[in-house]
């Protein structure tokens, strides 16, 4: 090849590279805009008309909002949502913050084991927790009620606002735990030591230094927890609807499932939820602005362990109590009801039989649900991770002007409660002349859209750790962009990708809030099957499905740990 030919070859391949770059970015952007912004716009439109879903345009009206804001039942639901959200968040914080401090900073025995135990309720999900606690508190036969009765205390009914708060408080405590423990771990211990050298005693160091430094991270966790608990569907559905205690999510579900469905009012309620969520995010930004300090340097300090003396066993007992209430009792209960033909408050091994497992595996819809769940979890996690990698590359490495808006856009789904997003998608795909509405694909779209923020954040925290010069070094030895990606970027990103994939798989396996509005016969997923079985009172079936769910999650966690050395209990 002549010199000139080589030169021109170089020029064309260079131009080809530029062309590729220009193509990719708007494509991804368009996809994201369509899947994120369009549904919200359609939802706003739906709330502003009185037309039934799918009908042609015929003028705008504010009557839905007037109805939502003035009708006492809706006002009640709004108030209940805020009440349950605030109370559950407070309980989660009162549990999560001490748990984090004990595990990270004290000399509590078996700290690593306890850390894993604290994360179990996070994996179980609030919905499964609510199911288990319904059983544990069943009238006259629930084991916890049996114990309470034998102690001379009255029975507790699982169906109350207080139990909704209790269950959500327990199952969201790990959220706060994740935030606070990582902040505690990333805090330079010298900051506290400097306090001692400045004459502060232990208590003063905690109040003047540790607490203010941890506060921004803790507040972020608290606001996220509030948004999650205000957007929770499963728990208030299970524990509230029986006594007509409604929150916004369950009311939206009600409006859509009554006949005739009131889609327009539901959309207005959805907008109301969106406003609450946006207020939460605005508040979080306001509070934590310029205050993330440098505690998140990711330097990985070895935390200063504080010796508790004999109190360490009290701390140990506290953590164990949490794990028992959040994980061991519920798991044990679900396991037991799945193993006995009929739960009658006796615990005899001779009663054990595989009848519920045989029963559910003989039903076609269970197999279908399993298949759907596995497909959605695998495909959803894979698509979300791929999108997250591309998005992070655009945000962190490209020099397009879309970078900033893309960052905001990807943050948006975190602000939209999942049930609201699914309501919006439902509305959107009724319009769109594609065979998506009423198929499994609408669930896939809902899953990916709902959790794209999570994926982007997980992969991003790995991506920012990769020094740009590592990629540039590959370019310098002659690797083209794609080659650089394959040889350098992807291998280094593997832990982040595997971590995000595993976390999303687990989230999708237990997803109910979005699925409940979007599934159609034939497209049920495991949590929807459990929800429907709960309606029929089939506890044995629920127990068996819960065990299958736990096995699926356990298998994926173990696989990602064994094959990729990813410790999912450290991911967030």
């Amino acid at each position, binding site marked *: 090849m002549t010199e000139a030919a080589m030169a021109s070859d170089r020029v064309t391949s260079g131009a080809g590279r530029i062309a590729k770059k220009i193509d990719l970015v708007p494509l991804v952007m368009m996809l994201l805009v369509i899947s994120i912004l369009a549904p919200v716009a359609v939802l706003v439109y739906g709330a502003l008309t009185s037309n039934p879903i799918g009908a042609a345009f015929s003028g705008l009206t504010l009557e839905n909002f007037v109805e939502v804001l003035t009708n006492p039942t809706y006002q009640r639901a709004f108030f209940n949502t805020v009440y349950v959200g605030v109370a559950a968040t407070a309980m989660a914080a009162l549990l999560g913050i001490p748990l984090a401090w004990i595990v990270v900073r004290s000399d509590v025995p078996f700290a690593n084991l306890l850390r894993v135990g604290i994360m179990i309720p996070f994996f179980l999900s609030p919905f499964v927790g609510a199911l288990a606690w319904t059983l544990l508190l069943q009238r006259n036969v629930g084991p916890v009620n049996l114990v309470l009765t034998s102690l001379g205390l009255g029975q507790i009914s699982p169906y109350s606002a207080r139990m909704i708060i209790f269950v959500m408080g327990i199952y969201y405590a790990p959220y706060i735990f994740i935030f606070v423990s990582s902040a505690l771990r990333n805090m330079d211990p010298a900051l506290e030591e400097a306090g001692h050298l400045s*004459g502060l005693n232990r208590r003063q160091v905690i109040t003047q*230094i540790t607490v203010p430094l941890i506060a921004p991270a803790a507040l972020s966790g608290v606001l996220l927890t509030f948004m999650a608990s205000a957007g929770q569907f499963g728990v208030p559905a299970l524990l509230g609807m029986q006594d007509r205690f409604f929150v916004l999510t369950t009311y939206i579900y009600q409006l859509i499932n009554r006949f005739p469905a009131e889609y327009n009012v539901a959309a207005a309620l959805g907008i109301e939820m969106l406003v609450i969520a946006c207020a939460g995010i605005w508040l979080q930004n306001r509070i934590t602005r310029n205050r993330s300090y440098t505690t998140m340097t990711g330097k990985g300090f070895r935390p200063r362990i504080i010796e508790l003396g004999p109190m360490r066993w009290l701390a140990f007992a506290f953590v164990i109590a949490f794990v028992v209430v959040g994980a061991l009792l519920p798991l044990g209960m679900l396991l037991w009801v799945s193993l006995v033909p009929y739960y009658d408050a006796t615990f005899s091994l001779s009663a054990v039989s595989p009848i519920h497992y045989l029963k559910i595996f003989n039903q076609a819809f269970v197999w279908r649900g399993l298949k759907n769940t596995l497909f959605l979890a695998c495909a959803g996690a894979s698509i979300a991770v791929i999108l997250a990698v591309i998005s992070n590359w655009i945000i962190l490495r490209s020099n397009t002007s879309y970078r900033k808006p893309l960052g905001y856009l990807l943050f948006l789904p975190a602000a939209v409660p999942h049930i609201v997003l699914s309501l919006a998608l439902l509305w959107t795909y009724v319009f769109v002349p594609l065979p998506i509405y009423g198929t499994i694909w609408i669930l896939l779209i809902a899953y990916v859209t709902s959790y794209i923020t999570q994926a982007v954040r997980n992969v991003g925290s790995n991506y920012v750790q990769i020094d740009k010069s590592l990629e540039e070094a590959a370019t310098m030895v002659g690797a083209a962009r794609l080659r650089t990606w394959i040889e350098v970027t992807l291998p280094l990103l593997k832990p982040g990708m595997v971590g995000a994939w595993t976390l999303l798989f687990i989230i999708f396996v237990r997803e109910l809030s979005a699925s409940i509005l979007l599934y159609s016969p034939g497209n049920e997923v495991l949590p929807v099957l459990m929800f429907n079985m709960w309606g029929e009172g089939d506890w044995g079936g629920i127990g068996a499905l819960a065990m299958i769910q736990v096995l699926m999650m356990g298998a994926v966690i173990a696989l990602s740990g064994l094959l990729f050395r990813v410790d999912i209990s450290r991911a967030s």
Partner: protein
Amino acid sequence: MSFLKVDNLIKTYGAFHAVDNVSIDVERGKVCSFLGPSGCGKTTTLRCIAGLEQADSGRISLGGRTLFDSEKRIAVPPEERDLGMVFQSYALWPHKTIEANLSLGLRIKGLPSGEIRDRVNEMLELVGMAGTGNRFPASLSGGQQQRVALARAMALRPKCILFDEPLSNLDLLLRERMRFEIRDLLVKIGITAVYVTHDQTEAMVISDHIVVLNKGKIQREGSPSDVYNYPRDRFTAEFLGRTNIVALDRKNSNPGAGIVTAANGVRFSSLDAKRLEDRSETGEFVIAFRPETMLVTDEPTGGQNCIPATVVSSQFLGGTTQIVLDIGQGVHVTAILLGDQSRTENTQAFVSVDPRHVLVLRDSSAATPMAGTPALRVPEPA
């Protein structure tokens, strides 16, 4: 009478002896440096003095007051030890202004607000940071944060101030300037200080007294010039500056006549030779002399220790010239000469070392790698 006294301090982590029976005396108003490679126990010793770590056994006292005594089970908490400390990471509280960083301890102590204000301003003035009180640490450069950290450590007027590698996060130029600033400041206010560093030049500039530590044990202590000019062991000599090490042929040496013989047969006159007669000195020894004590000439000088040699390499480094010479049987030594004294390779020359500078060192830690400066290792003759 020593002001800060550390006696027989021992601190272990499992089987690892971080501090192995260390005793140190620091006089009032003097600056003492702990010098050594990472993991030598210098920071652990400092943290034991601060009370941030608790030693397994030993005693620590400051100005006659016992801070720690393992036998009497005394361990004064760090906040009551009357100490100031400057941390490697500065550890300025990011959520507080500079003013609040300095005044927190004073407020805890219950000083009147007028006095607190005066003291804060005085301290900021002292470190050249006046007028920054309302700013947050994140808005300051590394060097400025360093000054504020120093001001904070002094604000409570402690009896003694502790430095934990305070300059290691600064760039080279700033580090070199700050050494002198800290030294001047400490002398000016006349405070007792303990300074931990792995940088020998920093220790030489800042301290009145240097304690060289290795593997939890004190290797050598004394004034900077004593420790540098008269190291007693190979580790200290190699850790402080560059040193030529030549294997010793003890059998053919004549300590009584002041003669030490190298393994390649070269005989050196050494004022240090009598050390080989001392029965209390056990173990292996080596011959050592520093590159800057050497003279390289075309003709024999007629003085002592004038050795014929071949120039192996010669490099003009700007301020100095570094010449590697073969003094027989492949034993290479390095000379560092002032100015441009380049020589042609493979030519003959004569190397001279004053007998005062030819040292006999205990081969304490032949395997210890040097931090910072590259070792001038001399291959054993074949």
